[in-house]
Structure formats: C-alpha cells, structure tokens
C-alpha cells in the first residue's frame, strides 16, 4: 500500500509508481479555520518565474493542464491531478502548500496528510499533525522536484507570515501577491452570515472529516441550511467559478444540485444517530425540518420519510433524484477504466500495479520461468511448456520442500503474471545473489542460476531450513502477502523464519533460539522460539512479509 513518509523523506516517483498521472490529495483542517491549498510550479532557481504555474482556487490549472486543481474529494480537503510528463521543461519543482485563510496558526490543525495516488492506489502518504508546528500560518507540505528524474519530498516547513511570506519565498511579485491576498480576504466577506463557520468559497473542504468527532465544530456549522455551499462533486466547473463571480457561487441554492448536500456535507452529524435511537422511526419532529438539520435525521414525518424532503429525489422516476454527477475521472467506460490502463515502458519487466507484472519476452530474448498457472493474460505468440526440475532436482525438491512447479514461457509477446493478488516485487540481480523461499518465487529470467541452500540449526522442526539461492544476471520476481518490510541487516536483525521472504545472499544467517527455562511450563508462551538472525556488511537487506506461512 502507501509508503509512509516522514518529514524530510525523499523518494523517486518511479520507485513509488510506474505511472506519471498522479493524484495528489491534501487533507488539512482545524476547527473554525479554512485553508487555501495551492501548488507552485517553480523554475530551476526555485522562483515562481511564471505566475501561470501558481495553481490555486482562482487558477485551477496550468496552461497545458499538467497540474489541475480537482477540489475536495475522497476525504481530501483539496486535490490535484499532476501529469508529470506534461510538465514543461522550465518547471523544476512543484511545491504543495497550505495557508490559513484569516487568523489562526498551524499548531491548531488536526491530523492531516498529503498523499499521492496513482492508478487508483495510494502509493505515498506523508502524515502530519499540528504538534509539529507552532505559530506558522503557512506550510510547505511536500515537493515534486526534478533531479534527473521526478522525485517526491515530504517537506513540512512552516512560514510565520502566511501566504504572502510564502509568495515572497518563491520570489513572487507584489503584483500577483495583491490579487491573491485580496481574494482571500474577499471570500469570507461576501459569504452569507449563516455560512460563516463553513469555509468561504471552497465550501466542502474543511467540513467533512475533522469535525466528525470534534464537539466544537458541529453546532455552528450546520445549524444553518448548508445547501448554499456548492456541491463538491463536479470539481472543475465549480471551482472555476467560485471567487471570481462573487454573487453567483456561494449565494443561492443551485437548483439541480442540492442532492449531494444532505448526506455528505454533514458527516459530523453521524455520531448523533447513536445517542438518539428512540427518535428514529417516527417521533414528531417538525416535518419541515430539512433532512440534515435536526439531530434526529430520520426522525421526522414517518409517513413519507424521504419523499418530502428535497434532498432525496421527490419525484420518483426522475433521474435527477440521485446525484448523477460523473466521477472525477470523467464519464464513460474508457474514462472509468483509465486508471487501470496498461502501462507500457521499454523495460523487460514492468510492474503494472502492485499485483501484476508484465514481461516483454521479445526484449532480451531469454525465456522466462514462471510458476505454473501464474499467467493471467498474454498478447502475441507465447508458448508455455513444462519445466521439469530434472531427476536430481526432483529428489532434492522432495527432500527439502524447496520445489517449484515451473513453466517455461518462450516466444515473442507480452506476458502478464500474477498470483492470488499477492504483491509482486521485481529484483534485478547483477551478478549478486539473493535467497528466496521457493514458495515466494513467481518468475525469473532463465539466465539466473538457482540452487537449494541449507541453513542449519537446532530447534527447527525437521532439523534444518532450506531456501533457494538465485545468482547471476537477470530479474527475479518475488511475491509477498501484503506490503513487506525491507530491513537493512544490522548486528541485531532477527526475523521469524516463517515470515521472512528473501534476503541478500551475502548476509550470513544464524539461527537464534530463545532458550528459556521451563518454557513449556507456561501454557501461553510467546510462540516465537526460533528466529533467524542475519549478519552481514552494510548494504545487505532482508524482506519480511506480514504473513506467516
């Protein structure tokens, strides 16, 4: 799943995902505060030399649409779509920032995050809380920066001065600082009074998640009809308008749109379902109370509980009764499936997502040995044949349990391999070796040599442990149940022999048994008696999966 980032962590985007079409979601919120989340496209000197690359609510996309503002969705206060390969060459850095609109300081914020989603999957998450900040009013959350390749850095650096300080930091000119600041000041101004507690133009962002459990937020926020806030769903069109066309956006109820309002915009209310169970079916609440207003949301008007409330489609059969908004990705079959498109790179082994591997057999020319039955699809001419282990191989395999049922895949074409939704990890060997348990091998280049290795030790059922050692030049695909952890080998690295998947073969494995007197005298001993200890020079690693076979 998502890789967790701490402040200061950096990684190549290509290590996180093969895709270049990324969704960046920022969740930041604090009771009573509103945030402006923006993205600065900076040049090589870290200057905002072109103000068209300052993406914020008033400028929702860059000219060539490589960075687009999508609005609040899926629990994120604000979200962006970043298409890395369309970013022009003069932009070297995208900095994602959050600024408090109005008074307040960053120490007030609740748990938030910046996350990167690619191909429908969250690949990176940088979580932060208010305790990491103090009086700052602006914070740079994370950067995409170009250093040979695009990389991601979790920054988490605050600025006392707010948006203007941030702009000055990026070399923004006063000319563009003015309108930006003005608009922010203006936004709350024209908001109608009942809305004061809700964020000005962006409406939806800050409200949902944070207020959920926080008792301070609810009361003012949804005591008033919430309908005025524009629905968050069709992100672009809504956000294109808000602050520029002041009277239109936040003022009246947009006629066709109110449907989304009742349910989602007030998730803070949900906890109240519990405390008032008695009111549920039909206790007299004034029937005119709109769905979301009273603490007993279902309570009023038993005879026609839903029908008479505007939110829930009064006229049966009219398709508008339910929000018919299109998903963020767009309408239609092709758009819905776009996140799952095949990613083609020039490489021989290409992970398509965490669970699928594509091999281009035409590239490199060597056949691939894969676990039998792991093919899910192929294009082109691919031939599958049984790969026997040979006579000695069978004997050894039977005796050690390190047996692989393999098939040889030859031909010219693209082969897609997967098994039981296990996570797949291609490991490229360049003359070095790796030890993998046989059941964790999915596929490998035939150019690799492999043999069964024995680890001796007392206390193992069966007397010894066996693994497969792979050596040579080529790629091996290892599968793990769940997201594995890769640990560097230190003087004190231990692993459960059932959970360890692979280790670099240069590290030495010792068995460590926890010897405890009268171990069995306790019915509930820890169950962790035999561990493998790893020793080796720095640079060695072990891979452990969250699943004990």
């Amino acid at each position: 799943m998502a890789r967790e980032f701490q402040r200061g962590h950096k990684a190549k985007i290509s290590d996180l995902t093969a895709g270049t079409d990324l969704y960046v979601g920022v969740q930041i919120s604090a009771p009573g505060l509103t945030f402006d989340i923006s993205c600065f496209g900076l040049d090589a000197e870290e200057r905002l030399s072109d103000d068209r690359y300052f993406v914020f609510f008033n400028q929702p996309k860059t000219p060539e649409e490589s960075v687009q503002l999508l609005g609040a969705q899926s629990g994120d206060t604000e979200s962006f779509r970043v298409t890395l390969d369309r970013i022009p060459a003069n932009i070297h850095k995208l900095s994602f920032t959050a600024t408090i609109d109005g008074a307040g300081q960053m120490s007030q914020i609740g748990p938030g995050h910046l996350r990167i989603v690619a191909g429908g999957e969250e690949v990176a998450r940088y979580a932060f809380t208010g305790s990491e900040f103090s009086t700052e009013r602006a914070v740079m959350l994370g950067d995409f920066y170009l250093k040979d390749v695009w990389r991601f850095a979790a920054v988490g650096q605050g600025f006392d001065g707010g948006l203007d300080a941030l702009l000055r930091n990026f070399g923004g000119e006063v000319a563009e600082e003015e309108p930006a600041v003005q608009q922010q000041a203006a936004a709350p101004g024209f908001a109608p009074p009942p809305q004061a507690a809700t964020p000005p133009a962006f409406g939806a962002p800050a409200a949902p998640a944070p207020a959920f459990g926080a008792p301070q937020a609810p009361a003012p926020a949804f005591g008033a009809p919430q309908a005025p806030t524009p629905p968050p769903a069709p992100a672009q069109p809504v956000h294109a308008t808000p602050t520029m066309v002041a009277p239109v956006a936040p003022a009246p109820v947009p006629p066709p749109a109110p449907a989304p309002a009742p349910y989602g915009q007030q998730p803070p209310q949900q906890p109240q379902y519990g405390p008032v169970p008695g009111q549920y079916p039909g206790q007299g609440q004034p029937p005119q109370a709109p769905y979301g207003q009273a603490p007993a949301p279902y309570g009023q008007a038993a005879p026609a509980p839903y029908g008479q409330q505007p939110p829930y489609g009064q006229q049966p059969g009219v398709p508008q009764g339910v929000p018919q908004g299109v998903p963020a990705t767009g309408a239609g079959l092709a758009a819905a499936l776009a996140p799952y498109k095949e990613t083609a790179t020039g490489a021989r082994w290409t992970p398509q997502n965490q669970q699928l591997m594509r091999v281009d057999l035409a590239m490199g020319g060597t056949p691939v040995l894969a676990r039998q039955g792991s093919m899910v699809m192929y294009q082109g001419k691919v031939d599958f044949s049984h790969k026997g282990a040979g006579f000695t191989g069978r004997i050894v395999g039977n005796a050690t349990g390190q047996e692989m049922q393999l098939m040889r895949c030859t031909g010219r074409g693209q082969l897609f391999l997967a098994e039981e939704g296990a996570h797949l990890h291609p490991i490229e060997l360049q003359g070095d070796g790796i030890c993998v348990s046989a059941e964790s091998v999915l596929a490998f280049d035939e150019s690799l040599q492999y043999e069964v290795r024995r680890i001796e030790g007392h206390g193992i059922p069966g007397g010894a442990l066996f693994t497969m050692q792979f050596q040579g030049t080529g790629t091996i695909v290892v599968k793990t149940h769940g997201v594995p952890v890769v640990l560097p080998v230190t003087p004190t690295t231990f692993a459960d022999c059932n959970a360890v998947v692979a280790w670099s073969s240069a590290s030495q494995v010792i068995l460590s048994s926890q010897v405890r007197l009268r171990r069995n005298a306790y019915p509930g001993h820890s169950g962790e008696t035999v561990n493998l200890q790893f020793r080796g020079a720095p640079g060695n690693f072990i891979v452990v999966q969250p699943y004990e076979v």
Partner: protein
Amino acid sequence: MNQQLAGYAPTPVAARMENHGRTMLKVAMASGQDLYARTGSMVSYEGYITYEPNPPAARQVAQQWATGEGAPIMKCSGDGLLYLADYGADVVVINLQNDSISVNGTNLLAFDAHLQWGVERVKGLAKFAGQGLFNVEIAGTGWVALTSRGTPIVVDCGRGDDETYVDPDALVAWSPALKVKGKRSFKASSLIGRGSGEAFQMAFSGQGIVVVQPSEDSTDRLRIRG
C-alpha cells in the same frame, strides 16, 4: 475514539455510485431508480431500502444463468445510501455513456436496473470447474460496479495482429465487440502429467478492451456462502 475513525466517515455523495475506499461501493438510492445487485453483497444501508431476491424481471433475462436456484441477483429499491462489498475485492465503478460491457458473472457487483442487460453463456467455453462461464452483457447509459481480486488491469486489444489470450479465471470484463474463442494449449506432454498449468485460454480479437484481475481466484464467494 471517533477521532481515529473519522477518516472513514462517508464522503459527500457526488454520484450515483462511488467507491468508499478500495473495496466498498456506495450507491445513492432514490425511489424509481432501482438497482440490481449480487445477492448477499449488501453490507450496510442507511435509509429505507427493500430487497427482492430473484425478481421476476431478472428471472426472465437471466434464465440461462439460473442453474435451478435462480439468478444470484436481487433488486434493491428505496431511498438512502446502500453499501455493497464482495469479501474485500476491489470495486471498480464505471459510468456507462451509451457504452456496453460484458462482465464475468462472478465479477459483477451491481448495476442500474434501467440498463439493458442479458446473460449469455460464452459459447464453446465450458469451464472444467463445472459452473461454466457466464457473462452479463450490459449496455446503455448508467452505472455499473465490478469487483476484481486485486487491482485490475485494462489492456487494449487490436494493437497489432496478435490476439490477446486470457486465463478465464482471471478475466473480469471485456468489450462485447470483441470476438471471443477458446484456445486449448494442450500438448501431448500435458497428458502425462507435465502440463504448464495453462491449458486453456480465451482468445480475444478485434477492437476493444479486456479487464483482467491479478488473481486466478474466481470463486464466487457470495454464492458459496449464500
């Protein structure tokens, strides 16, 4: 306590069908807009929703699917929010705009009742597993939700002259415009216990897409339990 769980609260309703997380489907129901869903896939609902298993309308259409006990489909109607899931499988929401898609019976989770649909048995393909391969062809303008064990992948057919071959157990959906046929890759050696494990594939040719899941687990969990 709620603080930690707050992140899982439902997001604002923006569309008829949405993902809640990767593996749950959220459907905004309104009367007059019925939904067909796999029997047993409901995990929770909010509001007033009724379920009718094996509805007469579906029985007609899904005659072929019915292997004696009726089609594994229920009709959901009412007002509120409906949450569906299939044992932790990933959910893919598709908004059809006058498109059509053919979905493997076990990978279909829900679809709008007003869509045109029909059940077909894929010709020439009797799966050895026994139940045969059924697919549901859905066309029109509306919402469909599929399940996939693991993140699926979508491949364009018709990129070259070559056909695309798919393991029937991993197949999720495809464009009905594609030509389908079965392909046996038996060899004489397979008969003496030396198979490659890949004896049988479906070959697709033409212009369109194929959706494949990264798992050969095509067990119909909803049905087994039901």
